[in-house]
């Protein structure tokens, strides 16, 4: 009896240790961007030159996006609690303004997007999940009293890499699927197919995701008929 208890305590202890190691060791990539940030009609412009230090590591200098420069840096971190130091620099590398902020990461998040102008202005959403879940539905869409019917079978390709195949709702099909994409700018390619997988019609559209949004909903019939509202925030 006693050894049984010791054994189970030991096993639970090891599992807890494993989870702990996973949590503190898991890599989170932080994309630090010095880009224009828009929220509630307000626009925060990027700075000419900033220096960013994450968790006291090697500092990164980021210029304003221009030409080929994307205005972003990629930093690898581990653990859940982070500290970021932002220093705004002038042409002679003198610090004009600096600010330190703290943020937490959820363990499941692989990539983060950290916006410097937003951080400097304490705007909501300065740190966001860089991975956005895109829900795609093939369901009837009603707007202005008009209804666009769902298609028999569609194939949706997200960012030219992730392919989803969705049938009409009913017969055990939900008429919905999802995929994970990273970053803000995306493309969507839709193929309407018959039951022999012959493509009847296809269309490609592009769209942007806002920083603060974690999940979006796209309605296929609405996209195909160019109806406003094909892209909306996903609500459970």
């Amino acid at each position, binding site marked *: 009896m006693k050894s049984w208890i010791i054994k189970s305590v030991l096993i639970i202890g090891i599992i807890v240790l494993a989870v702990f190691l*996973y949590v503190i*060791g898991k890599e989170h990539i932080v994309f630090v961007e010095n880009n224009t940030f828009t929220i509630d009609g307000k626009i925060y412009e990027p700075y000419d030159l900033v220096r960013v230090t994450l968790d006291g590591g090697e500092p990164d200098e980021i210029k304003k996006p221009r030409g080929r420069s994307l205005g972003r840096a990629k930093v690898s971190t581990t653990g859940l609690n982070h500290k970021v130091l932002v220093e705004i620099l002038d042409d002679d590398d003198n610090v004009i303004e600096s600010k330190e902020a703290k943020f937490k990461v959820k363990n499941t998040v692989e990539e983060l997007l950290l916006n410097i102008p937003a951080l400097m202005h304490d705007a909501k959403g300065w740190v966001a999940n860089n991975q956005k879940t895109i829900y795609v539905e093939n369901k009837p869409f009603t707007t202005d009293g008009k209804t666009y019917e769902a298609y028999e079978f569609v194939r949706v390709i997200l960012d030219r890499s992730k392919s989803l195949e969705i049938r009409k709702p009913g017969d055990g099909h939900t008429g919905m699927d999802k995929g994970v994409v990273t970053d803000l700018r995306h493309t969507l390619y839709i193929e309407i197919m018959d039951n022999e997988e012959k493509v009847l019609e296809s269309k490609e559209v592009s769209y942007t995701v806002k920083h603060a949004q974690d999940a979006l909903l796209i309605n296929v019939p609405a996209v195909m008929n160019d109806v406003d509202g094909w892209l909306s925030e996903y609500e459970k």
Partner: protein
Amino acid sequence: MSTLKSKDNKGKVSRFFVNNAVPILFILFAVLAIPMANLSIEYLIAEMITRLARYSFLVLALLIPVIAGMGMNFGIVLGAMAGQIGLIFVMDWNVMGVPAFFLAIIISMPLAVFLGWMAGIALNHARGREMVTSYILGFFINGVYQLLVLYSMGAIIPISNSKIVLPRGYGIRNAIDLVNLRKSVDRLIPFEIGGVEIPVMTFILVAILCVFIVWFRKTKLGQDMRAVGQNMEVARNAGIPVERTRILAIVISTVLACIGQIIFLQNIGTMNTYNSHEQIGMFSIAALLVGGASVAKASIKNAFVGIVLFHIMFVVAPRAGKTLMGEAQIGEYFRVFVSYAIIAIALALHAWRKNKEAEFARRSLRIDTEEATGTSE
């Protein structure tokens, strides 16, 4: 006995040479070949430190089955495979640094225990030919490993990281860059002497293992193993569960090898998914035998001496071959030759000695019984 005593000293010296023939041969080789290789002593020392850090744990993993009389456990390859599977998962989950190292150990441990347990059962069925059996077992499990890693990871087992999965969507890439944990343990406590990096933490782990082995020998289980190793029938009559003890010896060895392989790979920094484990058994065993161990007796000292001597040969041979024969290729083959020949010679010497003793014992027994009764048993 009196005649033996009179030439005691001479006998001692010659016995020392006979017992340590293999290490002495290697020291001679090193003395001859090092000047020919044109390598600086600093380079050699740095290389030996790296290799001690890399191989010690694996070689030490061989010691416990020797105590239990099961010879050289080629089955450490099984542990190595378990360790690699742990590393694949850690890489898939993007876990970094020292936590990744320990997490890989925790994940692969149950697998190593299971494989060791299976190997132990198999070896219990192959008494007297444990070594060939564990060798073939390594090959067999290698096939299963391929089935698992090359065909079902990404297909049945959820692995999705494009850094490690083949472009076709399932199966693990041939070479995995262990960026996440390259030298993470080696450099945990940074220390340098004269530009040579010393992997302090790795040596601490090795030291802990040495202490464990010394302690283990004194435990009840360790004593049981020794008894089983000396004579299975006597041990059984003394109430020791022979089968269970032998299985435990293999399980411990497999688990240690699993940790050893993870240490080995974090030091190298790249994992050849389908090759890194294959040579491990052979190299570790060759090193231990070069250190003066035999199939029936192996110590911690043998392990360290062996690693240094074997790897001096390993580093020096191609270069010496080039100087001596004008061809590096000869040195390469020489290296392969020595690795295998040393095992052959050490095993043959041991078997020969054992047969001699058995024959002597039989003869004296025969004489005794004849003298005592004059009748047959």
